[in-house]
């Protein structure tokens, strides 16, 4: 692309001398390209499987070609439609609350704190869950939300409920539980980037605003939020592409038979069909669907951002 024009005119002509001088770099580059081809590009070739009736015995090139049959099966499968809905809705909830709104509010409130020590302490504590594995987080969540867990205990003591709620057998709650799990684990971490954006806002803007008579709320509304706007938009765009990626570990670890209809995501579907049922072709087709939609979402969002004159990714 534009890289061509960046180099100096000398680069246009690759002489033997330059190649010889850069032989070490070229050798290293070749090693890394071979590695990349093996671990990143060859699996892409595996996409062929989705268009044939792949059998390990006959291999990639010997299996029967079936065209779009696997995709037709996918979209006639009610479970798959359900799975798409689950993945999309949980991804969207995840994008809205734990990734965007709450981290922004948290960063602004944290920035308003007067005590520097307190601020540091809150930050340190809020990042910690990010470093714990989902195994640990879901384990803790299971205990907290169990019938004798702390949440039920508090709700009962406050007199809000009489009998404990069994959170994990209620399909209506599952998405929100997943959303909360992300919030608990990632809110503090996701706020870092907004905090650093807030700290780079020119203090003069705040001074000017207070001379104009803006209070705390006025400054947040007219200085902080507009200054954060580019950061928010770029992060939103970046994370849009991950919407369909946002569901695997948590749903796998928190899901159970009772909430299956709302907990299964595309990745879990791939796992059940591709790995447990050994239908490699169907699993690959579902995976392709996910990748293609993700790329489409990114491209569309980027185009929309471009048209409305906003920041964009590329």
């Amino acid at each position, binding site marked *: 692309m534009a890289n061509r024009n960046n180099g100096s005119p000398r680069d246009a002509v690759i002489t033997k001398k330059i190649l010889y001088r850069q032989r070490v770099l*070229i050798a290293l580059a070749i090693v890394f390209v071979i590695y990349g081809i093996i671990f990143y590009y060859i699996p892409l070739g595996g996409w062929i499987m989705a268009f044939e009736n792949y059998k390990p015995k006959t291999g990639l090139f010997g299996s029967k070609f079936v065209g779009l049959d696997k995709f037709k099966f996918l979209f006639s499968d009610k479970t798959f439609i359900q799975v798409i809905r689950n993945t999309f809705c949980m991804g969207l909830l995840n994008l809205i609350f734990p990734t965007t709104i709450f981290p922004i509010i948290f960063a602004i409130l944290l920035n308003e704190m007067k005590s520097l020590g307190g601020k540091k302490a809150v930050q340190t504590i809020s990042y910690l869950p990010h470093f*714990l594995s989902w195994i640990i987080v879901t384990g803790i969540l299971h205990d907290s939300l169990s019938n004798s867990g702390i949440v039920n205990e508090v709700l009962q003591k406050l007199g809000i409920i009489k009998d404990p709620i069994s959170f994990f057998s209620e399909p209506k709650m599952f998405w929100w539980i997943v959303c909360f799990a992300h919030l608990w684990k990632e809110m503090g971490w996701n706020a870092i980037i907004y905090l650093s954006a807030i700290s780079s806002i020119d203090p003069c803007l705040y001074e000017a605003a207070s001379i104009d008579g803006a209070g705390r709320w006025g400054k947040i509304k007219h200085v902080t939020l507009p200054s954060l706007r580019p950061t928010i938009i770029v992060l939103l765009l970046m994370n849009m592409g991950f919407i369909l990626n946002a569901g695997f570990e948590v749903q796998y670890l928190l899901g159970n038979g009772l909430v299956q209809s709302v907990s299964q995501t595309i990745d879990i579907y791939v796992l059940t069909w591709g790995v447990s049922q050994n239908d490699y072709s169907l699993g690959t087709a579902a995976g392709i669907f996910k990748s293609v939609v993700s790329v489409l979402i990114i491209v569309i969002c980027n185009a929309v951002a471009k048209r409305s004159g906003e920041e964009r990714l590329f």
Partner: protein
Amino acid sequence: MSNQMNGAPGAIRVTMTENKHNKTKTSDTIFHVVNAIIMIMICVVTLYPVLNTLALSFNDGVDAVRGGVHLIPRMFTWTNYSTVLNQKNITHGALISVIRTIVGTLLALAANALLAFVVAQKKFVFRSQLSLFWVITMYVNGGMIPILLLFQKLKLTNSFWVYVIPAMVGGFNMLVLRTYMEGLPDSLQEAAEIDGAGFMTIFLKVISPLCKPVYATIALFVAVGQWNSWFDTMLYNRMATEYTTLQYELMKLLSSVTSLKGNTGTTAPGQGVNITPLSVRSAATILTMAPIVMLYPFLQRYFVTGLTIGGVKE
């Protein structure tokens, strides 16, 4: 640039306007009180489940069933820990986890740094092509099934190497390192070149010593990822019990209450009576998160650096 590198997580500028207003209005006071309460609540919600698990892990299992154990163990005991540590699969899993974290981190750091160094060479003839080759891998990948089949072909499944080899080079880590290296002054390398140093010498003696902060950040990210990873164990090494990791064993413990019963009788005949699945699970959870929580305060300053570098460039 260097300012950002040194910035501690808490170094958010206090806005000047706040200092100027010496007369604190009542609405101001109310805001700060409310804000402090919100922050304290966030900390409580974050810390309570962890501290509760800690208390349960030191509490007599049967006693804990009565409920009411919150932050302090009521009947103190080491039995839960001795039970966990007497389980062969858990101690062996911990060993594998430690080895994969160390080996995986060293390999990933060396490989990513070397690749970043090559891509950061402004005069390198294939620079833009190599860069694009790796950026593409960040956005498209083959998906679960093709990768699984590839690993089976390469004999990586049921082996230790599946943990460290495929994850060695990654587009994102490479970009963060490259961005940092490109920020270093060119004159350093030019001076070394005039002195007759080759590319490897420049990489090892000139660039790498200057990259220590970013190396630490990448190492931290990779190490945490390696330690917390469990899905690769489940997918590739489920059958190879000698290579299962601590997180995977913890997951088995959390998901299957029944499998534990067999162990309690055999491991602690004299004292095993008072163990419950919950108490043993708590002990295992604490043991699994212990390394991260203990190292956390020392490593904190590195991850903020890394996130800001990555974020700014993306």
